[in-house]
């Protein structure tokens, strides 16, 4: 059986492509971590669902045309690609890939 650290580094299936059409978002839980998925014009982004500020749910946040997500609780904005923010903490993002009909995430 692989060690937990190996599992953590592996690509993991998150959902079917047709579950996340352009303009939509979806919450998945992988390894006990809530991850918010966004399909923005065909590009899929994955970010830890809990805002590092007060744990607000980013899945309910507001996306913008520059690839950002703003927390619905207190407005912290994060770059969906990098998790970077002008605020005192940044969010965790995850690499994504589409293979066949499946969207997968790299949790490392």
């Amino acid at each position, binding site marked *: 059986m692989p060690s937990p650290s190996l599992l953590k580094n592996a690509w993991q299936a998150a959902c079917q492509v047709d579950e996340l059409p352009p303009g939509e978002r979806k919450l998945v839980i992988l390894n006990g971590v809530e991850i918010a998925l966004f399909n923005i014009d065909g590009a899929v982004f994955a970010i830890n669902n809990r805002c590092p*500020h*007060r*744990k*607000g*749910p980013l899945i*309910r946040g*507001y996306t913008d045309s520059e690839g950002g997500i703003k927390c*619905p*609780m*207190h*407005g*912290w*904005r994060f770059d969906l690609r990098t998790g970077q923010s*002008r*605020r*005192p903490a940044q969010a965790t993002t995850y690499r994504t890939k589409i293979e066949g009909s499946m969207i997968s995430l790299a949790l490392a």
Partner: protein
Amino acid sequence: MDSQNIDILIKDEYAFFLRERDNWSLTAGPQDLELVAHALRVLLHARTTPDFLDDYRALVACQNVDGGWSPFSSDTESTVWVSAFCGLMLIRGNRFLRHTQLTQAVRQAIDYFLDTQHQDGRWVDPAWADLDTTSHPVSFFNVVMALGETHRQQEVRHAWQQGMRFIIANQSPDGGWYDEEFHPSGVEITAHLIQDALVADLVIDQEVRGVRTACAKGAARLCDWQAQAGSWDEKNVDHTMDCTRSLMLVTHILQDPHKRETVLRGFSWILDNKNDHGWGDFPGMETNLERTCDGIDTLLKYQAYSNSDTHDVVKLWGYLP
């Protein structure tokens, strides 16, 4: 829900809150101080503060040398928002505890806010919008003045006036306050500014010009923003609790009974969207302690608000002794 059932609900939620004590009490170890302040407010409004002196002493123990507090109790760099919340709970709690160590800590907190105000009247915290941040030291100074604390009295009054004017000067013509980055919808920030900062002036000494009008316009804007079902900001539990409590206080002070229906709709929505124990940030989300403290506070304030013959609801903001 009638008053008797609200009483039962408060007892039930308070019992849950106490069972979770290790997750909010500084006596159990380092904590998120914003959560601690939320918890101390529950104790204050449930009138159980005297049973929790050790929690207050622990809050004093993690005060930084500059008189402020850090977001997390074991950190050492002060930030304005959480410092104001902690200072406010200390001065209000000390009304009942009468402890010299707490009195000294409150005076150090006053020093901190006098030292950190910017020239134009604002206070700044990188985690929050400037307007929202400013409302919190102003709120602390509201209570400092209401309770007759004399430490650096003239400087406090001057700083408080500057903060109030900064807030009034930044009100939008439509009655709301906005921050493009933090609060584009304006809902939460408007609710905060009228209840935590401005309206106290109408109770304390009616000194700052334009407060009554600013509060009335802000309250009207909040009413306009309410969804038909009673929530604010797309079913945001936190913001709905903020708006409901804000309107309870502000419309009571403005003697505006016409907004009672808005308050009742908000309150009903909050009751309809609670979990078995506590509340989450949005309907269907898991309970978190901060929101649960807000929920208990809302229940307690609603009880006081329902008794419209008294000023009990104003006392729950500390603007009257």
